[in-house]
């Protein structure tokens, strides 16, 4: 018994990570042979300023130019993509002779795919699910209204016959980043379904596509294969294909989960209902049974009560094959689940609500199942739902529809947009979306769609995004919780008081700004732009922070000025995370998440502070200007 428990525990911890498989990028063995434009490298860097099309043009132009110039052009022409030997990164550099697509050895039906992709300026690629349905990869940096041919778009097909045209679907917003930065893509794809005669009964579907944390497609059906597929015949399984004929592209961290329909079954389901004001699951012991019966599915409504009930279900769980299974229990009140008489999920409450999840390894065959639910919370409706999935199957639910109705939020969203003038909004915001909640933050949205968040509490630029401004529903619906959510892919920076007088070059920057050294003074509105200029005092010095979109309205320019000169031992922390100096003098931060370019001439120092790399400038009182490019 004890060994079994131990084994389950061990497997539980191990199997957490083996839900997903990784496409090996140690070598090209996971892919079919190709002309050689695809290779495995250790690291890649791209010069975001060089358009690959200019490179091609300069190649053809150079034939007409003098020899001297030709050599110069070729040197800079080689600059857009540079790479270093090693493994872990899949890189395509095509030319006129080598431009094959890369096709995976595996074939997939339903799949969850996650990867990082990097594109140089002007490049074009695409991921074909089942080799047939293309999700476009493109340098769409700064595009205001993306089309299907921008990154994340579902590409069109080229068939013009009536009924066979597919016009493509644009991503719901442009969540892309600057060339040369890693972008994260998460795709959940469902293959078309066919009946036993081979007739299609449901379309290929992008259940969700998330680019850099922003959902750009949700439950989109693709009725026909898109342009350039390996076959126009729709099928239940096909390989992954990546376009390689239209410019360099790099990938890393490609993980996937092949899914099929689950064959788990629950049978011999019997229930006992108890009535009473139970506050703990143990309170059901010895209680008289009010109702009992058998059913096919779990149904919280068997109690016939809105509240003050307890339900016990018991049954047999049939596992088709030995594997790791994720069991999800959604409930209101309190609940517990036992498999093979062992408690695997429990919340001993009577008034809670939520989802309990665990992963356990189960052998093939039959297992006993026991589920208990109580509720003493009149303000919550009854809710009980059980679903099971494994690393290779879609989830399957074992409850009636109204035992766990899908929770849909029917609140009308309250969206704030910048109009002819910039929009300012103070509110609480969670750093990185789910970390520390900051209390003295302000969001600025420009009419050009370049938005940022400034922490007045520490005089720090903490995040920036392009596109729509914010969702204020969390602060303005009902009592609200005082917070807003940015509506776009936010590039978060770091949390610190970034300007400080440090005793030595190793002293840490203050995590939190405090009086009397630091005093926020608010902001003034710049009449010409309508943007705020932030003011604060630090150790008696008046400091101004001015943040504006750059001339192309794509990224931010940040200027910090001081009321005094001849400051000594003052430092400015510009960025945090692994740094890499780029060819144009800018720094790629945190493994190419964003760039920082110092414009005011100071030389930054990269210092390693307890494992954290910081980009630091010495401050003497002269103005600091830099660009935050993402």
């Amino acid at each position, binding site marked *: 018994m004890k060994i079994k428990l131990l084994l389950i525990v061990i497997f539980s911890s191990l199997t957490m990570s083996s839900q997903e498989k990784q496409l090996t990028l140690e070598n090209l063995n996971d892919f079919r042979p190709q002309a050689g434009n695809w290779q495995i490298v250790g690291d890649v860097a791209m010069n975001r300023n060089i358009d690959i099309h200019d490179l091609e043009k300069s190649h053809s132009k150079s034939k007409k130019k003098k020899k001297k110039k030709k050599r110069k052009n070729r040197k800079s022409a080689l600059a857009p993509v540079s790479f270093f030997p090693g493994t872990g990164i899949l890189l395509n550099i095509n030319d006129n002779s080598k431009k094959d697509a890369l096709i995976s050895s595996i074939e997939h039906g339903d799949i969850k795919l996650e990867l990082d992709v990097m594109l140089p300026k002007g490049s074009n690629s695409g991921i074909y699910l089942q080799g047939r349905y293309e999700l476009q990869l493109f340098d769409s940096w700064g595009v205001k209204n993306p089309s299907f041919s921008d990154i994340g778009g579902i590409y069109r097909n080229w068939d013009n016959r009536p009924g066979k045209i597919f016009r493509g679907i644009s991503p719901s917003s442009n969540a892309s980043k600057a060339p040369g930065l890693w972008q994260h893509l998460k795709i959940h794809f469902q293959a078309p379904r066919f009946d036993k005669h081979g007739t299609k009964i449901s379309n290929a579907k992008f259940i969700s596509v998330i680019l850099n944390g922003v959902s750009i497609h949700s439950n989109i059906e693709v009725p026909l294969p898109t342009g350039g597929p390996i076959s126009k015949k729709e099928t239940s399984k096909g390989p992954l294909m990546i376009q390689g004929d239209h410019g360099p592209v790099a990938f890393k961290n490609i993980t996937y989960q092949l899914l099929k329909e689950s064959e788990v079954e629950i049978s011999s389901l019997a229930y006992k209902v108890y009535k009473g004001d139970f*506050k703990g699951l143990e309170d059901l012991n010895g209680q008289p049974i009010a109702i009992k019966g058998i059913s096919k599915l779990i149904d919280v409504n068997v109690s016939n009560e809105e509240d003050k009930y307890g339900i016990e279900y018991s049954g047999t769980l049939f596992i088709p094959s030995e594997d790791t299974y994720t069991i999800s229990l959604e409930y209101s009140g309190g609940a517990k689940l036992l498999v093979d008489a062992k408690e695997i999920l429990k919340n001993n409450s009577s008034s809670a609500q939520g989802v309990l999840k665990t992963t356990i390894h189960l052998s093939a065959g039959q297992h006993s199942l026991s589920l208990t639910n109580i509720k003493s919370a009149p303000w919550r409706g009854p809710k009980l739902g059980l679903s099971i999935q494994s690393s290779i199957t879609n989830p399957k639910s074992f409850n009636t529809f109204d035992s766990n109705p899908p929770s849909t939020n029917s609140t009308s969203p309250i969206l704030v947009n910048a109009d002819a003038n910039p929009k300012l909004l103070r509110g609480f915001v969670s750093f990185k979306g789910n970390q520390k909640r900051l209390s*003295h933050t302000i969001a600025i949205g420009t009419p050009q769609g370049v938005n940022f968040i400034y922490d007045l509490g520490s005089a720090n630029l903490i995040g920036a995004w392009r596109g729509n401004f914010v969702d204020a529903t969390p602060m303005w619906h009902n009592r609200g919780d005082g917070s807003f959510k940015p509506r776009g892919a936010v590039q978060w920076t770091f949390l610190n008081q970034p300007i400080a007088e440090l005793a030595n070059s190793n002293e840490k920057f203050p995590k939190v700004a405090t009086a009397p050294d630091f005093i926020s003074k*608010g902001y003034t509105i710049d009449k010409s732009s309508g943007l705020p200029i932030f003011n604060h005092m630090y150790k008696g010095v008046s400091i101004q922070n001015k943040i504006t979109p750059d001339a192309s309205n794509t990224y931010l320019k940040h200027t910090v000025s001081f009321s005094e000169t001849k400051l000594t031992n003052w430092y400015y922390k510009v960025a945090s995370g692994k740094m890499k100096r780029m060819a144009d003098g800018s720094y790629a931060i945190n493994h190419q998440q964003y760039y920082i370019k110092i414009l005011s001439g100071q030389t930054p120092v990269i210092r390693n502070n307890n494992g954290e790399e910081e980009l630091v400038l010495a401050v003497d009182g002269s103005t600091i200007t830099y660009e935050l490019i993402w």
Partner: protein
Amino acid sequence: MKKNTHNIFRTILFITITAFVQGIIAQNTPKEEDYYKITKVPVPEGIHVEGGGVLSLPDGSLAVCTRRGDVWIIENPTMANGSKSTFKKYASGLHEPLGLAYHDGALYTAQRGELTKLIDSDGDRIADIYQTIYAWPLSTHYHEYSFGPVLAPDNSFFVTANVAFGKEQWYRGESRVPWRGWTMKISEDGKMEPWATGMRSPAGYGLIDDELFYTDNQGDWFGSGALWHLPKGAFTGHPAGLKWAKHKNSPVKVTEEQFYSQIDKREVKKNGRFIKPSNIINEKNPDFVYKIKEAIPQLQLPAVVLPHGILGVSNSEVKVDDTAGKFGPFSGQVLIGDMGQSKIMRIALEKIKGQYQGVAFDFRSGFQSGVMRMDFNNDGKLFVGETNRGWGSAGNTNSGLEFLTWTGRMPFEMKTVKAMPDGFEIEFTQPVDKASAEDLDSYKAKSYIYKYHAAYGSPQTNIENIKLKGVKVSDDGLKVRIVTDNLRQYYVHEITLEGVLLKGSKNTTLHPTFYYTLNNIPDGAKLNISELSTTRSSSKKGKTTKRKAIKRKTTKAASVLTDTQIQPLLAKNTCIACHNKDKRVVGPAFKAIAKRNYSNQKIVDLIYNPQPKNWPEYATPMAPMSHVPKVEALKIAAWINSLKKQE
């Protein structure tokens, strides 16, 4: 000569008609709107004036700040001379500002996290400097609202700060960061002085006699909402802020340990879970503020209690009528707003033995949303900024901007009530009918007090009927002394003038009841019994209708009470705080409840154990009303069900 006669005739006719009309108005039971008219300020579509702050500016325009962070300046808000009002956005992006002050051309507002000065430096009526005067910490709990500022006589600012609530003990107010649960005094140069604590939800504040006063509402530790005088170092009752009392700048010297050594924290765990403290029914020795004050002298008694459910459920703005008569006969008195009941109450203060106390009356109901902020303009009109978002109110809209104008007519009201060594002296706005005023049966009186405990709110406790000994009416009929031996210090004395009529009329006062908080009984000469009238009309034959009704109540327990008979029960048990017979207010109408076809017993069960999910469209869940005696609950249930027959 002929012309003069003609004019005289016209004048006489005019006066007669006016008097006649006035008479008619008076004869047709007077209503609040006869004396104070509510006018809506039309708001452009898309603007939500969730009135967090209302301020009249010297040039006649009105500044309004909204819960969504905007400050609007409204020109011609009274739509005078037939012109429209115009809205101009002065500032935006503020974090739920809840008050405005004006000084030297700049507007000041308290946002959630700071006191901000909004300066228009180039004269285009748009703020271009948002200066942080002083920022304070926040834990980001939604309930940490900050209210203010009030411009103090020395040109500094007072700001009051709401508490947060616990995670597991979600009902217990707590101060997670300094200075939640405190009142702060902030100077223009950014220095902050902690001023007083004991606050829970200090939504209303104002200067009276150049002294700071504030209102708090019913909640944990507060049996009822009330108005407090807030001198420096006061502790008004909620212990959350005591967490910071040990701070070197704190003028409040009461520590948490000291406090809980005197009073039970009621932090009880059962089966590993905290139990929410509730009112102990038939409590043998309940605590009261005045009792605990003996051990904790800094504990501040409320100056005037606003009995919960009767005079508001969530008291807000404190505003003195300084219009020198433009707003009617109550110049110098204090108006208090209420969010939940969408109305305004009226308070007259006096100082007895150096302490503030006084009387409260109902004043004007019927606002479209919850009354949050008020300010008078130069013409003596009262602007009211309203919101109810998140809580519900008697008025049904989420936001509103209205103004109240005195029509010029004199209402027949109790102008003020003063405490006397042997009772009270009521002063009326118009002379009373001597006979009805001298009839002791014209008065119904009782007194009660609210408990001081960790539970949420308190029922009226130690209720006693007050037996009047006698009455003395002044010769001019404007003052009436009521004398009793049943005065109880610290108790709320609630006296209804059921039968006191206006001289020459059949009307009683527009608002029949006064609520006097008797913190101190004045010294002085008592009236001689020989000066008093002690007649009772009920002792005469023929006037038995009232008695009969009472008899019927006791002999036929099963019969359903009428609307009039049930009113006192609904008021005493504070049902009327949230329910109205016909219309939806904070809670569903009694008629709507009747439609659900519950049995009487089921209604009683629901009174003790409400099921908020039965009414999902209502923002505020009903709290269990365990203090309602079962006998009364059954009577209320029977009455509710009788409404089914009414159309």
